[in-house]
């Protein structure tokens, strides 16, 4: 579904990503882990078109993503959340979610000027669906609250609801449970499981190992811009290169 081949990205003289190759298959939950600064978020930024790769191939559903502007990539079915939450703070929860549906509101300029039935119907449906999505992430009762007033954990949930609003086929989650307490983590875990049952493909970056190991089918480890291991969670946990990357090399006796 999503294919990265020999992908690299340089910032000035710094190689943020170097020859990254990985494939996310449909209906998979794919995890990307690695120490801080390894380049994980850069992978997401390249996939969503925020900046172009300096080398390599990027394909979604067999079509190249090179040179495609971010809003078109979003319209093709890739949605994401952000490590440093980027909600529309001064908008209500429900409006945040409806913004996510922007490309799916099928009315024209004159429809909205004249408030035609097509316009009213589309807006009514959007609200109804937004409310549904908010209930799904457990924020239904707060729908008229401003996003900026939410707790940290709830903001992360709202970001997921907003991403789902665009009806993505691939959902990129950048540290979805960072800063959450154990209860909230379990809620997000249950949510991702239910998304998978809806046949959504999930590609996530996460530091919480219990979370990654409990959810992902495949895990890749990124260290200093390179993939050092890829495989099933159990294999990754036993991989000496991974242990070394996280814990440092054992001193020879």
């Amino acid at each position, binding site marked *: 579904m999503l294919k990265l081949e020999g992908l690299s990205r340089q910032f000035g003289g710094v190689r943020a990503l170097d020859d990254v190759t990985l494939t996310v298959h449909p209906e998979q939950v794919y995890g990307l882990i690695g120490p801080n600064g390894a380049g994980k978020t850069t992978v997401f930024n390249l996939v969503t078109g925020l900046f172009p790769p300096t080398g390599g191939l990027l394909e979604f559903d067999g079509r190249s993503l090179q040179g495609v502007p971010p809003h078109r990539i979003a319209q093709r079915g890739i949605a994401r959340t952000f490590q440093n939450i980027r909600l529309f703070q001064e908008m209500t929860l429900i*409006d945040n979610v409806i913004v996510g549906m922007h490309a799916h509101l099928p009315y024209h300029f004159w429809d909205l000027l004249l408030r035609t039935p097509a*316009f009213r119907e589309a807006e009514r449906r959007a609200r109804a669906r937004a409310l549904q999505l908010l209930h799904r992430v457990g924020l239904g009762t707060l729908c008229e609250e401003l996003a900026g007033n939410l707790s940290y954990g709830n903001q992360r949930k709202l970001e997921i609801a907003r991403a789902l609003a*665009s009806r993505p086929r691939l959902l990129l989650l950048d540290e979805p449970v960072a800063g959450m307490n154990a209860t909230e983590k379990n809620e997000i875990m249950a949510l991702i499981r239910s998304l998978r049952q809806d046949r959504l493909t999930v590609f996530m970056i996460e530091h919480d190992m219990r979370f990654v190991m409990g959810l992902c089918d495949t895990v890749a480890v990124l260290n200093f811009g390179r993939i050092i291991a890829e495989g099933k969670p159990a294999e990754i946990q036993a991989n000496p290169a991974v242990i070394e990357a996280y814990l440092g090399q054992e001193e020879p006796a």
Partner: protein
Amino acid sequence: MDWSSWWDTYSTLVLSIGVYGMLALSIYLTLSCGLLSLANAAFMGIGAYMSAIATLQFEWPFAFALFLGTVLPAAVAFLIGIPVLRLSGVYLAMATLGFGEVVRVVLLNLDITGGPLGLNGIPPLTTWWHVVLALALTVALLQALRRSRIGRAFEAIREDETAARLMGIATDRIKLLAFVLGAAIAGLAGGLNAHYTFTLSPGNFGFESAVDILTMAVLGGIQGVAGPLLGGAILTLLPELLRGLQEFRMAANGLILIAVVLFMPQGLWDPARFRRWRRSRGTRAEA
């Protein structure tokens, strides 16, 4: 004082409240999309000159002249918007201010605009209901946009452009739309203005009026359409009420802007503050 003599004395002032309200709304539109554009005075000038030339020199009907005065600035905005809207924040403000200067110099040097003398003897065709109708249409347009996917896109872009793009919003097109619509509204206001002031000169549409228009929107507040209308009305009436301070009008505007930014950063019309007031009065009443 009877009605007709009152109207003779104050009609220009009353019409100006409406026209400046429209100008304040035109900059409110771009501000609501996160664009600090100071080109609206120039677009007003283009609209004013275009429609005045149409009625004065070609003797075309007033409605058609106003139409041209709306469409030409919009077309110009479309052309310059494509390169200029790549900029944001103060860089956009600088570029649009520069554009305003270019327009002023062009108006100053063309023959058809009357050069430095400007245009005189423009037929006084604007009546109160023209202004009311134009203002009502502008308010209706802005309200319709606000409660639609386009209005939400404006707000999303203002709050976080990157996030908006990643939600599938074609931010470049939406920003261009705000810019072009703002220019059209300013141009229409200019056309109406030209036909009750009798004369036009390039100096009317320079830096000073660009700042005036911004002041109106910031003073009134940009949380809704009521704010810019209020700001436009206050800044139109204020110089009349403070006639003695006429020469200090710019200084007064500046001081007001500073005071408002310091004490009422959201402007005079701020629904959130009104709610807070109501709430605090409510709790006091209970106690």
